């Protein structure tokens, strides 16, 4: 088997297991209240980490590029309660515009 197909097989199976473990093992069970509170906070912690890494990192380095002003414009749109489409398009248009003129 070539290296590529080995990667396809192993990474595919590992990903299936990572995604399924929680939903299959926790089937129908209620978490104790303390654990439920911690799990509730997974969403804000993970989302904030995704924002941070997707806006400020590339190739395992911290970088400040056109994505940052894009996300700043998105933050303003969010504060103005703009719809999701407007938020996303405003971010992309800002980054694209800055890249076009630089």
């Amino acid at each position, binding site marked *: 088997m070539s*290296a590529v*197909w*080995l*990667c*396809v097989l*192993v*990474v*595919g199976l*590992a*990903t*299936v297991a*990572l*995604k*399924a*473990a*929680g*939903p*299959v093992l*926790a*089937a129908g069970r209620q978490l104790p*209240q*303390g654990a*439920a*509170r911690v*799990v509730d*906070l*997974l969403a*804000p*912690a*993970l*989302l*904030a*980490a*995704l*924002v*941070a*890494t*997707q806006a*400020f*990192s590339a190739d*395992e*380095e*911290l970088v400040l590029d*056109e*994505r940052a002003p*894009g*996300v700043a414009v*998105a933050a303003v749109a*969010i504060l103005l309660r703009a719809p*999701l*489409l407007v*938020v*996303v398009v*405003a*971010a*992309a248009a*800002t*980054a*694209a515009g800055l*890249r076009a003129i630089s």
Partner: protein
Amino acid sequence: MAERTYRDGMRVLLPLMPAIVAFGASFGVLARAAGVDALAAVVMSATTFAGSAQFAVVSVLGAGGTAAAAIGAAVLLNARYAPMAIAASGAFHGGPLRRLLEAQLLVDESWALSSREDGFDRKVLIGAGGLLYLGWTGGTAVGVLAGDSLTDPATLGLDAAFPALFLALLAPLLRDRAAMGAAAIGAVIAIALTPVTPAGVPVIAATAACLVGLTRPRRREPARRRTPAGRPQEAST
């Protein structure tokens, strides 16, 4: 609030579809450039279905790395799906096989779009995840066929669309101090670790921020203070 449907899940994903198809196509182009055969690239999109891990595999292999190094990087990047799936596990129902299959549609975007103040919405996750699957796999097929004739998605600013999406979905969750604390600590952990750890580690390590949930009670219960002898009782059950 009205119950949401699969169609609602597809509708909320629509603003992101151009970016998803474009990144699927750029994965196809990059895979071909790294010497990965076209069929393997499309099969990887259809089975692994996780952009960052797939980009890691082709870039490690393209740079002459071993399969073990590529697999290690990809598994590390996808490890975040374990805590994400745990957070969303209450949304799934049915038998183990059905849960296993439905959970495969969980990716960053479908997970984030289906999050609500009181948990996760299964139909939105499946509707958004299903459409995303078609866009990602179809985009990859376009990329391996069209090759270098495609525009780099970054030129169109599409790489800024994803952090903007996650920020928009984070905002409504910041409704109390614990959630704000978890988000702030999570972001700080991710930023601090980015230059010093392999990709994938910063986001997983950021999940430690949810432990701030242990520092505060779920809600104040005035009835407790009036209960004699420290035996808490529910005011009404």
